[in-house]
């Protein structure tokens, strides 16, 4: 209905390989981008700070994991550890007096190096074995963090992040934090959108589908797996650093524990492997829906006037939220991104069921 394709033609291959082939998609994206820009003026500061900001930053992180899991097909259960590497190295660099711009890049690069170590595991093992290997590395990281006072400041200590400053401007307001995170998330999204139409993206997909088939096609799976891990780790590192710099303000090992790794993976899977818009949905689902369900349940119990005891009240949202994930994955195993795709397809061929010829 909203998707109009007539008159869209391409006079050269550059135009043919543009990101948005459907004008409606481009317009929708532009609209959402503008909405994102205007968010600080529309959304109350509390919501901006406690919903929008974490949503965007975790989306950036989830997109990084999607790169390695969704695109390159490598299961990764140690993503939080890689984020931690980035966070700690960036903060240490900043504390050392390195400007934040460089500190963030240092964080990203350090993550990249450490994250590439995971790649070497991925070259040897696949599937469940890779999952287990990355999980093991997550535990190793956790152990290193908690047992190296030099890095974390001790087992139960936390590390204070210096005030974020970019381009000589100290950033202290909520709006400021929001724009920094928004900028990063947009950057990662643009990168991922472009990844789809580059040789790198296609090589990653080839490796995902069958790495030895990719090798027959002349795609060096060794090289591309390392590249995928390194790139995704860079995104993880910067996202981790920004998470601490704009949201937590202090870094602690528990913030990057194994449960966080699993949570990010859940975001990617619920959102849809290999889907960019899906990552946004997936993060919203995992991060924001529990709060919503909680509010809803409380409001309902108040509205109905039922005396539900506090313990039950605490568990119902969790149950509902868990059920929701199960239902979504039952309806569409490819996640929320695919659900969106289905709706888009439905409207794309409107009013026909499918368009032949």
């Amino acid at each position, binding site marked *: *209905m909203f998707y*109009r*394709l*007539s*008159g*869209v*033609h*391409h*006079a*050269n*291959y550059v135009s*043919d390989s543009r990101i948005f082939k459907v004008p409606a998609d481009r317009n929708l994206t532009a609209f959402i981008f503008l909405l994102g820009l205007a968010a600080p003026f529309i959304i109350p500061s509390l919501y901006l700070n406690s919903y929008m900001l974490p949503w965007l930053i975790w989306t950036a992180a989830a997109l990084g994991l999607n790169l390695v899991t969704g695109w390159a097909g490598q299961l990764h259960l140690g993503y939080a550890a890689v984020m931690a590497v980035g966070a700690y190295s960036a903060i240490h660099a900043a504390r050392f007096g390195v400007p934040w711009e460089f500190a963030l890049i240092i964080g990203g690069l350090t993550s990249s190096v450490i994250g590439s170590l995971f790649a070497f595991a991925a070259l040897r093992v696949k599937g469940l074995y890779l999952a287990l290997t990355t999980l093991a590395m997550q535990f190793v990281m956790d152990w290193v963090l908690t047992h190296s006072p030099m890095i974390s400041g001790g087992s139960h200590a936390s590390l204070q992040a210096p005030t974020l400053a970019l381009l000589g401007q100290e950033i202290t307001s909520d709006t400021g934090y929001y724009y920094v995170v928004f900028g990063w998330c947009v950057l990662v999204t643009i990168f991922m959108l472009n990844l789809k139409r580059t040789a790198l993206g296609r090589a990653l997909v080839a490796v995902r589908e069958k790495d030895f088939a990719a090798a027959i096609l002349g795609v060096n799976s060794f090289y591309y797996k390392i590249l995928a891990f390194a790139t995704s780790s860079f995104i993880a590192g910067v996202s981790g650093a920004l998470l601490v710099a704009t949201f937590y303000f202090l870094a602690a090992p528990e913030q990057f524990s194994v449960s966080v790794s699993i949570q990010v993976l859940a975001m990617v899977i619920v959102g849809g492997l290999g889907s960019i818009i899906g990552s946004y949905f997936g993060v919203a689902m995992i991060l924001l829906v529990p709060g919503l369900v909680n509010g809803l349940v409380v409001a309902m119990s108040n509205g109905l006037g039922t005396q539900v005891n506090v313990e039950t009240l605490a568990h119902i949202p969790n149950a509902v939220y868990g059920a929701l994930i199960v239902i979504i994955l039952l309806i569409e195993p490819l996640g929320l991104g695919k659900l969106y795709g289905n709706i888009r397809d439905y409207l794309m*061929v*409107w*009013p*026909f*069921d*499918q*368009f*032949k*010829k």
Partner: protein
Amino acid sequence: MTDLTEKMSSGGETIGALLARNASRHGKDIALREKKRGIWEETTWAEYAEEVLACAAGLEKIGVGPGKAVLILGDNRARLYGGMLAVSLLGAYAMPAYPGATLEELRHFLGEVEIVAAIAEDQEQVDKILELKGAGAEGISHIIYDEARGLGFYEVDGLMSWDHLIEVGQHVLNETPGLREDLFGRAKPGDPAIFMHSSGTTGKPKGIVLSQKNVLAAARNGHAAGVFEENEEILAYLPMAWVGDFAITVAAALLCRFTVNVPERQETVVRDMREIAPTFYLAAPRSWDQMLTTIQVGMENSTPVKKWLYHFFMDRAIAAETRKLNGKSGGLLEPFGRLLGEVMVFGPIKDQFGMSRLRSAFTGGEAIGEDTFVFYRALGIKLRQFYGQTENSAITAMQAPNEVRLHTVGKPAPGVEAKIDESGEILLRAESVFEGYFNKPEATAEALTDGWLHTGDAGYLEKDGQLVVLGRVSEVMHTAGGERYVPNYIENRLKFSPYIKDAAVIGAGLDELTAMVCMDFEAVGHWAEVNGVPYVSYSDLSQRDEVAALLRPAFERVNKVVTEPLRLKRFVCLPKEFDPDDGEITRTRKLRRKVVQERYADVIAALYDGTKEVHVSAQVTYETGEVGKVERSLPVREV
């Protein structure tokens, strides 16, 4: 309007002058877009003119000149269009042929004029020309091809690629100062633009030469009548050997600087049309019918909500449009329903078929069914009818946007005079009317008297000047009872049924009328699928009782319209479609009555002698040229 017409005529009266004008004044505008491997390659007017000049120079070098002809063989390709222009710059005859033309049909062209070269689309067409050469056309000394695939190892004298020809021509152009201007100005308005052939429903096709003056006058008349504006986007998909294609895609495109979009292949026309979304679209009634069938079949297969919405808006729009065509108001809520329907249903459908930017849409060549016509009007496409023939460069009479009626074809265009003679035949006089049949003085004398063209169509002018066409004069027939009828008129009304593709009405000199019909395989096949009617082939399905029951209402509807003695009494559904390769219809799908009556003499006899079943063996010509047979016994059905 006159200002504009004068301004445009000042551009010149010849193809060369117009091409030069477009190249110098609008050199950077896009003249052509051709889809190759998914990409629309663009050519500006300046580039196009240069390529045409180079082609002309190259053709001249290989001996093309006044009095000689160049065969153009293939589907629509930008280079074939360029080649046609180049040939007309040289004052020679560009002779396009249908890409599916058989050797026999092509051989007929040879006797008329000396063909010295051929421009072919691809290997298939080159092979055909080589075969033609083997069969006595030694005169074709050069064959130029567009698509090189499969031709790499051919060792034939005079076979060259288009690129090579251009290279040669470019060399000549650079060597000879002033050749460009000379080529642009060489041909005079009276020189040939194109060498066409009549469709040949009654005999061998006659050669028709349209001069540059003729075709450009037709284009100018069309513009003056508001058929098209300047800078239209059009899709070049009509057969190049049909006059309508030349009038629009070449003549009007030059005059009004259209952007001509050439689809990748015949099979991709639907998708390519969506990508281009032309602003002007001309199609034969059967193409409109086909698209209607596709839309209806698509909607039947759609989901319940979409289907309900579609019917909700479409049924109301059709009802409103029918009221309007009958001169009543569309209804109070019509504008509102139209607005909402446009958003919900009509807009998306038009978008799917690339019709969302259409400013004018035309149907011509035959009568169009009421259902089809009203459907497109209801969809919001301002479909109009036009009337024209090869002899008068196609653009002759057309409906004005606000004067659309079903039974008329509109008023004659400015610059065209029309009158009806005593016998009821339509006579036309215009600058777009040809000079006479090629080398056929008797036929010419019959067709042209004092500058008036005898169209061969029976018709009349209404009080407000609207022309009504009834059918071919030569086709007016009489039953044994002396009742006068035009079989084509009845056949067209039968064909308005989506399930009937072709029909032949029989009854000349007989007591009553009967018909042989060919069902539409797509529509009936889909109907059979939905209704659980099993079948294995076309011929099997065509003989099923359920199908006979499906077709019967079409006959009943016709019988309600015609007078008592002209009612159709019986019919037979033929086990194969009429096919131009078998000679039953022309390439423009007009019935060759004589051939059909000879070939199905047994069936016709059975229709009248009271037998219940007749055995038929119909001839089928395969694309390889082999001839096979379809044998089947056909039940004779009562209406």
